[in-house]
C-alpha cells in the first residue's frame, strides 16, 4: 500500500502504459493518460471530491482508509497542480482543513474517465 502511494515525479503521458493498446491499427486513438490522477490515492481524492462539494482532511482520511502522511502528501500534489482547493480554518481550537475540487480538477477527472472508457473500447475492438 505504502509502496503504491509513494510520490514519484509524474509527467503527463510519460511511459504511457496505453501504448500497448495502440498496437491494433483498427483501434481508435486514445488520449494521453493524466499520470497525476492515475495514482490510486489521488484518484480517490479527486473522485470523492467530485461526489461531495467539500470534504475535510479527516473525512477524506476515513473515506480512503489512509494515513495522515500519505493523504497530506498526495493532496498537496493535487493542490499544486490546481486540481483541488484547500481551505484552512479553525473549529474552536482545532485546525480544520477542507478540500474541494476545482474546475480544472473536474475536467481532469472527466478526461481520465473518457480515457479509461476509450481504453476499454479499444481493447474490445481488437
Amino acid at each position, binding site marked *: 500500500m505504502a509502496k503504491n502511494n509513494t510520490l514519484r515525479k509524474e509527467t503527463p503521458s510519460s511511459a504511457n*502504459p*496505453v501504448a*500497448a*493498446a495502440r498496437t491494433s491499427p483498427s483501434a481508435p486513438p486514445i488520449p494521453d493518460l493524466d499520470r497525476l490522477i492515475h495514482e*490510486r490515492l489521488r*484518484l*480517490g481524492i479527486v*473522485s*470523492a*471530491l*467530485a*461526489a*461531495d462539494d467539500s*470534504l475535510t482532511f479527516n473525512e477524506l482520511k476515513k*473515506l*480512503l482508509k489512509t494515513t495522515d502522511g500519505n493523504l497530506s502528501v498526495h493532496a498537496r500534489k493535487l493542490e499544486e497542480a490546481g486540481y483541488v482547493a484547500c481551505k484552512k480554518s479553525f473549529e474552536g481550537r482545532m485546525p480544520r482543513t477542507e478540500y474541494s475540487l476545482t474546475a480544472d480538477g473536474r475536467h481532469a*477527472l472527466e478526461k481520465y*474517465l473518457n480515457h*479509461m*472508457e476509450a*481504453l*476499454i473500447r*479499444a*481493447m*474490445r475492438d481488437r
Partner: protein
Amino acid sequence: MASVQPIRPVRPEPLELHAHAMDNLRFIRETMERAASFTAVPGWGGFAMGCTALAATLIAARQPTVEAWLTVWAVEGLVAILVGVIALSHKARTAHVSLFSAPTRKFALSFAPPLLAGLLLTVVLYRAHLGESIPAMWLLLYGTGVVTGGAFSVRIVPVMGLCFMLLGAVALFCPTLWGNYFLAAGFGGLHMLFGIIIARRFGG
C-alpha cells in the same frame, strides 16, 4: 530421465490493460458512492406523507374500536410508504442518482429493520390488549429507523429521527388518550416541517 525445472518461479500473467481500466472505473464509482451523502430523501414526499397522516388522524379519531383505529393507521402506513417510494424515485431520477446505488441501499438496510420490528410489536401489543402503547412505540421505532438510515444522509435527516424518538419517549409517559394526537404531531407535523426544510435546502 530428470525433468527440467525452471530456477525462477513462473511469474503470474500481468493484469490485462482493459481489466485495469475497468478496475479503475469501478474504484472511481465506489469512491464517489461512499463520499456522496444520500440526497434522494424526498422533502416534498415527506410533506405529502405528513398531509396524509393528518387526514388519517382525523379519520382514526372517529373510530369506535381499537381494530378500526388500527386499520385506519395501517392503511395510512401503506399510503405513506407508496408516497415515499414514488417521491424518492422521482427525486433520484431528477438528481440522476440510481435508486440502487450504495448510499440508497445503506439507507434502506438501516431504515427497514426498526420498521419490521415495529410491525411485529404492533401484533404482539394488540394481542396483549396493550393497544394504547402502540403510538409511542411506532414513533420511537420510526425515529430509530430515520436516525440509523440518516447516518448515511444529510444531517437534517437524523435530526428529524431524533425528534420522532423524543416525541415517542414523551408519548410513553403521557395519558394513553393522547396517542392519536402524538401520531398527528409526529407523522403529520414533523414530516411536514422537515419535508419543507429538506425540499428547500436539498432540491425537492
